[in-house]
């Protein structure tokens, strides 16, 4: 082998590397400029008193301390968001699993039923919100139907005790079809023979569910709950459109609260909120990672 062919080959190699780097250049650049740098800047701002107009003033952990010790509205938003997550995660995946089990019974017209559950999933949350605002109206469909059954009208979005639940109901309606589809796909991948063998051994339907179905669904269950929790903690659109955080801040959530601070130009403070949210999500992601590893 001559020296010329070696250098030719290494030239070729370098050229291939450059080509590969060119292929990933736009995503990497986009990652650095639109994600990495803003992320670092955001963290720096969270340690500063900064309004975007005057120069930032370093205050250490002051923003975080204020959030957790002085800001009742933030604690309220944190509590509301957690209630929302618990409500949604308590009901949504259960509904998803129930409907998936129904659809898994060799149903005819499967795709029609599945479409009915799934349609709201691809609908924008703004659309979902405007529809439910109409349904929840004091004179809207729900109250009219309740009235015809002899019940009193409910202040779905005007009663501070109920508003958050109303937002959660609309969100569950919007989202559980996603879980239906995922659970259905998982159920369909469980081998039929397992059930047949169990039936020969005389296992009841309930026993089959707890000893075959649930264990087989475990990884998917972990996925659904963890990603559901992470998504729900970021709730914003519904609150923005349906309630603006009211009445009496009863539906104010973390991201909605952050949005308000951003509009008030408390950029350092808003950044601190973002990092608190990030910390919450990291904890759940870590749990997800642990569970998926098992």
């Amino acid at each position, binding site marked *: 082998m001559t020296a010329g062919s070696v250098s030719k080959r290494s030239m070729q190699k370098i050229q291939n590397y450059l080509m590969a780097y060119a292929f*990933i250049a736009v995503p*990497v650049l986009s990652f650095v400029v639109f994600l990495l740098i*803003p992320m670092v800047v955001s963290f720096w701002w969270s340690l500063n008193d900064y309004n975007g107009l005057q120069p930032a003033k370093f205050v250490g952990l002051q923003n975080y301390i204020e959030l957790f010790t002085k800001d009742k509205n933030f604690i309220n938003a944190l509590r509301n968001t957690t209630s929302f997550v618990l409500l949604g995660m308590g009901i949504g995946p259960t509904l998803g699993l129930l409907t998936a089990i129904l659809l898994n019974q060799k149903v005819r017209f499967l795709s029609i039923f599945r479409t009915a559950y799934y349609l709201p999933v691809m609908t924008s949350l703004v*659309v979902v919100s405007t529809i439910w605002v109409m349904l929840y109206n004091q004179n809207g469909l729900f109250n009219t139907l309740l009235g015809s059954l002899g019940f009193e009208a409910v202040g779905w979005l005007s009663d501070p005790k109920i508003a958050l639940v109303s937002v959660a109901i609309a969100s569950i309606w919007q989202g559980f079809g996603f879980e239906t589809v*995922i659970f259905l796909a998982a159920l369909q991948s469980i081998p039929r023979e397992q059930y047949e063998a169990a039936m020969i051994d005389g296992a009841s339907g309930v026993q089959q569910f707890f000893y075959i179905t649930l264990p087989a669904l475990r990884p998917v269950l972990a996925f659904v709950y963890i990603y559901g929790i992470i998504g729900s903690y970021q709730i914003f659109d519904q609150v923005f*459109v349906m309630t603006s955080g009211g009445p009496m801040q009863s539906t104010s959530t973390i991201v909605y609260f952050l949005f308000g601070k951003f509009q008030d130009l408390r950029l350092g403070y808003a950044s601190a909120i973002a990092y608190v949210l*990030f910390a919450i999500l990291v904890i759940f992601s870590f749990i997800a990672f642990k569970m998926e590893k098992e």
Partner: protein
Amino acid sequence: MKTQKPFRFYLGRFVLYAVLVVSSITMIIPFYWAVSTSLKMEQFVFSNPPQWFPNPPTLQAYLSVFTRINFGKYFLNSVFVAVITTLGHVFFDTLAAYAFAKLTFPGRDKIFFVLLLGLMVPFQVNLIPLYRIMATLGWTNTYLALIVPNLTSIFGIFMMRQFLKSIPNDLLDAGRIDGCSEFGVFWRIVAPLALPGIATLIILTFMGTWNDFLWPRLVTSSEALFTLPVGLAQLQAKNTSNVAQIMAGTVLTALPMIIVFLFMQRQFIEGMTAGALKE
């Protein structure tokens, strides 16, 4: 015994279908009510007993949404932003995914790992500085702010990489021996084979962009740049707007996605389950 089983079987089937039909109808009622309300005269929107069928039906709300509010413009904005963004994802995500899946270069796995870490960062964390960057560049209230930060996505790269890994290397080598450049291999061999994956990518990106709210709401204040969800939220927030009008806007915002879904149902379902069921 043998004659009893069919009876129980049919009873079970009856209950099953009854539950499915009733629950499906319950799911559809809010949509139906939105469409029906959008075709009502405003004074009948909240009539008691409720008007299940618009009487008389009217297109007044749709007319006023296009004439008194600029919904046509929002619609075009949404289409433009979603189409360009989706094209960007198809090209950049697939190309990068190809490099990560099939090419060797120094730092490949490390770079990919760092990108994956970025998946964990919620958008709210970089939101505010990102807004400032847009403002500094003078991009707020332009299409640039709506499109450029979203031209590629880590999730898209990740998904396409999984997909491209299943393409046999022999095919690529055959292309190289035939004298294709690396880009030629990508364009002539990989991209056509990746079409099913690309279909999923198109759907997920288009849906995400079409339905996106927080970012477009933040970077546009001029009505001329509103996308449908932003325009619709604005319409909802105005005290002067009437319910039939809001529902006309709602239907116009939701309908394109629903039509796309009905035509590409299989890819939708596959795309949605891909992330969850991949080991």
